[in-house]
């Protein structure tokens, strides 16, 4: 080769090892972004297919996950120790589960 080629590597999303090495903070970020997209999708579905229990459950699940991880971001933004980020990730997912369970069992959500 006469002209040397400049090569800059990046995170390979198609590589299984990349996903195995993905760290908790990154998972938290991905969960929150993906749940945001899914919320949009399920809200639209909810308009066209109201009072479907599986759809309601999934919408509530994604809202809980997104909101709980948002609280984590909020706490860290306000100055919570960054060392607690992994603990907060797990704690917030548990909180999301609790919230989901509470709402699903206590509130009337249609037929």
């Amino acid at each position, binding site marked *: 080769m006469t002209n040397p080629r400049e090569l800059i590597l990046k995170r390979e999303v198609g590589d299984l090892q990349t996903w195995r090495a993905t760290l908790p903070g990154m998972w938290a970020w991905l969960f929150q972004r993906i749940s945001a997209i899914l919320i949009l999708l399920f809200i639209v579905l909810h308009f066209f297919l109201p009072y479907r229990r599986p759809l309601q459950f999934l919408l509530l699940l994604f809202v809980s996950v997104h909101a709980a991880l948002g609280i984590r971001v909020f706490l*860290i933004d306000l100055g919570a120790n*960054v060392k607690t980020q992994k603990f907060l990730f797990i704690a917030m997912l548990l909180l999301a589960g609790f919230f989901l369970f509470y709402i699903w069992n206590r509130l009337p959500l249609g037929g």
Partner: protein
Amino acid sequence: MIYTFNVFRFDPKKDSEPYYQEYTVDMGESDKATVLDGLFKIQQTQDKTLSFRYSCRLAMCGSCAVVINGKEGLACKTMLRDLSGNRITVRPLSHIPVVKDLTVDLKQLMKRLRKVEPYFIPKSSSLEPARIPPTSKERKIIGLHTECIACGSCVSACTMMHWDPEYHGPMALNRVFCLVADSRDLNPERLEKIAGENGIYRCHMEFNCTDVCPKHISPTRGIHYLKRRVFWEGLKSLWGKRNAK
């Protein structure tokens, strides 16, 4: 113990595409062998053309930072026994141009650092040494952040470096944090420079830089401190303008 090293190979002068080359290495019975030891053994016994960077061999200089099994780390600090299995993939750092094989062009890192004026500008011209008690609030805020060895692991792990190549990056912003948090520093434009499009708001709090730093520094913490400082300084200037009217 026998290890299989799957090493990234690329010579920009010869190769049109990068590839991975496999080497089987017997590291003996020692449980203290590191990834760097493995690379040395490959270079000395199997392939003299393998290129990698190293210097101090005791996690002080940051020269040997590479990506080991998908995670950034110092080759001299990463023990083979701590890696799961005996198959090890080694590749150069991401987001920095590859010079050859595992060696990257650190000029790019330094260029990014230079953009943020990473040097101390004293407020006073006094020649007296500064007295900063280790128990002072300011010193506690800065903490270990001054211990950065500029290895580039954080830059490689940060996914935002890919989406915005002009982003200052965690290493440079960590340096800015150390200077902004230091009350002796005089640079009123420091915060302004990092509050722009390629500055602190590009950090999406993925914590990759924090998790891979071999010196256990959290650039994310520094960036968040800067975000709060920019917010309060902005609020103060708004309040000042309102009162001036």
